[in-house]
């Protein structure tokens, strides 16, 4: 029976190392298809890449692909037009810089040196973004793909959060047909973004869309939303909100229904108005979920690509291009180095913005709740 005992000990060996076998596939997959490409991408971003007969040829160019986005030929595309800067924008920029520096100076007492390093990175990102904002948008210049993406993230998340939470609040009240509304409101989240984009494109059409009689009533027949930068961006946000409000709705509804009902009823007996109840009892209990949901939503919002691609193809000009779409178009023009550089810039912006939000808002909230 040597064979069977041999097999048994082999089985025992597998069982003893089962921890490794359980986690190895996931870690290996992530290492090969997420970590390795992320590092590899840095080399793409620092090279001029050409297709040749026997594969790719890399020529090291340092940070030229990056600096091109900030100072060189692609500046208008990426940052937007940054000249001339108006006086008002300069004043606003100065105010922002001063307040960020004051925040940084104040936090030196409460943070360790690692925390201080993180805060310095966040502060520099904030100052950089404020400079771009003041130089382009607030001075009346056009904005580039960086701020178009941030517009989708900030305005989109804001609208979605307010409407989603509002709907969740209504649905958490004692109303009939709660489950019906829950199913209906959930559907858009699952519909393919490209389908959403095309449906929105058809609905927003000026001459053949369903709102054509309404628009004619107001006398705006000849106005085309897709020809104006800001209306095109706004329509994009509407499409995005149609899709993502359900996500906020579902999560906030779950949080609102977890609020202990006896607290609310006790307050009602004491004669508190519903506004007071919401502010004093319900809201403090759902805030941790709310900031987490916002963080998740923001992380996904940075990756937006399908909607602008199908609705406007990035137009008019490059007005609705998100950074991912920008990178995709550059890749199609066979400039892999620049494409990877833009992808990396998106990664840096996403990580710093989301990590700052996580550290100062989400964790800050949790600390304050515990204290």
């Amino acid at each position: 029976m040597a064979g069977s005992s041999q097999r048994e000990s082999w089985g025992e060996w597998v069982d003893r190392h089962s921890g490794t076998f359980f986690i190895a596939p996931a870690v290996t997959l992530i290492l090969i298809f997420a970590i390795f490409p992320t590092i590899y991408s840095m080399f793409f971003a620092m090279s001029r890449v050409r297709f040749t007969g026997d594969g790719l040829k890399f020529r090291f160019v340092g940070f030229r692909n990056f600096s091109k986005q900030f100072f060189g030929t692609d500046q208008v595309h990426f940052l937007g037009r940054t000249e001339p800067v108006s006086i008002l924008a300069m004043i606003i920029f100065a105010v922002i810089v001063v307040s960020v520096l004051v925040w940084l100076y104040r936090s030196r007492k409460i943070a360790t040196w690692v925390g201080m390093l993180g805060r310095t990175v966040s502060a520099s990102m904030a100052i950089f973004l404020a400079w771009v904002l003041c130089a382009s948008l607030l001075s009346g210049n056009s904005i580039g793909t960086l701020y178009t993406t941030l517009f989708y993230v900030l305005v989109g998340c804001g609208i979605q959060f307010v409407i989603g939470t509002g709907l969740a609040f209504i649905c958490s009240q004692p109303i009939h047909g709660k489950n019906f509304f829950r199913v209906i409101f959930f559907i858009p989240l699952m519909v393919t973004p490209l389908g959403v984009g095309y449906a929105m494109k058809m609905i927003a059409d000026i001459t053949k869309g369903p709102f054509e009689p309404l628009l004619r009533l107001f006398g705006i027949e000849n106005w085309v939303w897709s020809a104006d930068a800001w209306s095109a961006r706004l329509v994009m946000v509407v499409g995005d909100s149609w899709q993502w409000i359900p996500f906020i709705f579902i999560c906030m509804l779950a949080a609102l229904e977890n609020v202990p009902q006896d607290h609310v009823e006790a307050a009602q007996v004491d004669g508190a108005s519903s506004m007071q109840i919401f502010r004093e009892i319900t809201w403090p209990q759902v805030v941790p979920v709310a900031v987490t949901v916002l963080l998740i939503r923001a992380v996904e919002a940075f990756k937006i690509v399908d909607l602008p691609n199908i609705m406007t193809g990035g137009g008019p000009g490059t007005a609705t291009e998100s950074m991912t779409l920008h990178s995709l178009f550059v890749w199609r023009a066979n400039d892999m180095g620049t494409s990877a550089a833009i992808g990396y810039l998106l990664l840096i912006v996403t990580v710093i913005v989301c990590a700052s939000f996580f550290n100062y808002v989400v964790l800050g909230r949790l600390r304050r709740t515990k204290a």
Partner: protein
Amino acid sequence: MSDASFKFEKSGRSLMERLFEPPAIGKMSLVAKIVAYSLLAIWSVFVLFPIYWVIITSFKDAAAVNQGPFYIPFFDFQPNLDAWRAQFNIDRFCDLTSILRQVYLLVHNSFVFVVSPVISLNPMELQICKIYLAFTNSVVISVVSTTLCVAVGSMAAYALARVQYKPKFGNILVFVALLVLVIVATTYAGVPWWASSTVALAMFFFLVRSVGRYFKMRLGNNDILFWIISQRILPPIVVVIPVYVMFQAVGLLDTHLALIILYAVANLPIVVWLMHDFFANVPIELEESAQLDGATRFGIFWGIVLPLTRPGLAATTLLILVLNWNEYLFAVFIATVKVQTMPIMVAAKNAGEKGVFWWEMSAIIVVMIIPVIIMSILLTKFISKGVLQGAMKG
């Protein structure tokens, strides 16, 4: 909660009171009710109207679309099946006999794929109608990739909830350094990728034994969990260009396998995040008693833990299935010709279209979104049972 016990309705309530004050605890006032229901109704219309519009547009013909908006079938316009015929019939590969032939060809080609290392056979060219091909591709890719993702992800999540890991920080540094060396060697020095990675792997094991012992810092399970979940922050555009080159190097570009692996990796963080919470809530006593009875770790996982978390598993699977079905960016890069998925087909048709072919596009979109709408209704069943609430605790 019983309404009767809490009624504090006064006998003579003024009109204002009757409008704005709730009649009882747990009830809403009249005005609040009107506002709430009208807001819900408006939002339902806002949600359903685009879907309704796509569906009725798919039954319009060119005239019905171009002459301006028509809203109600049979009343405003006469619905017809032109768009659907254009998708399924006029395309000469789309009638029943050719579809059956395609099924045969698919089986044949899979057979060829399996035996190709042994016998060299040529796969037959698939002449197939586009929408059918795209639909099949989408189904195959999303189902297989979801299975892979949920299997790998829930195993990792279970292990992170039950087994203690203590990876050395030094080993990770060594690994990353070697990765950088491999990339430098392959890109700038022209060493073949398989040679450099084999050498690096050997060096890794050597260095872990020798150098690794000088680093004492260790990480814990929570660090690994955070690391896996934080992969979701990574924008896909960052990884997709190197991944394109990698798949090109091993000849997997434009294959099902490439997309299946990519989708699985992209959704791993979600699976690990959701499933970790379910597994952590399974009472550990069950597993301990099974372990005393001599069950292996895998046996416990398969026989006890997975059945206990079945609702959570189902909800996670549905969610990942929908995400895979909708994925666009990876497919744009990897699936250039043969493995076009539904989203790629829609985008390509949208870009190539001259003028307005709304009715045909609508038909394709209806085909694309019907499965997800069914899945989302199934998913809400789970969510309303509170299955996914645990993960939302923050």
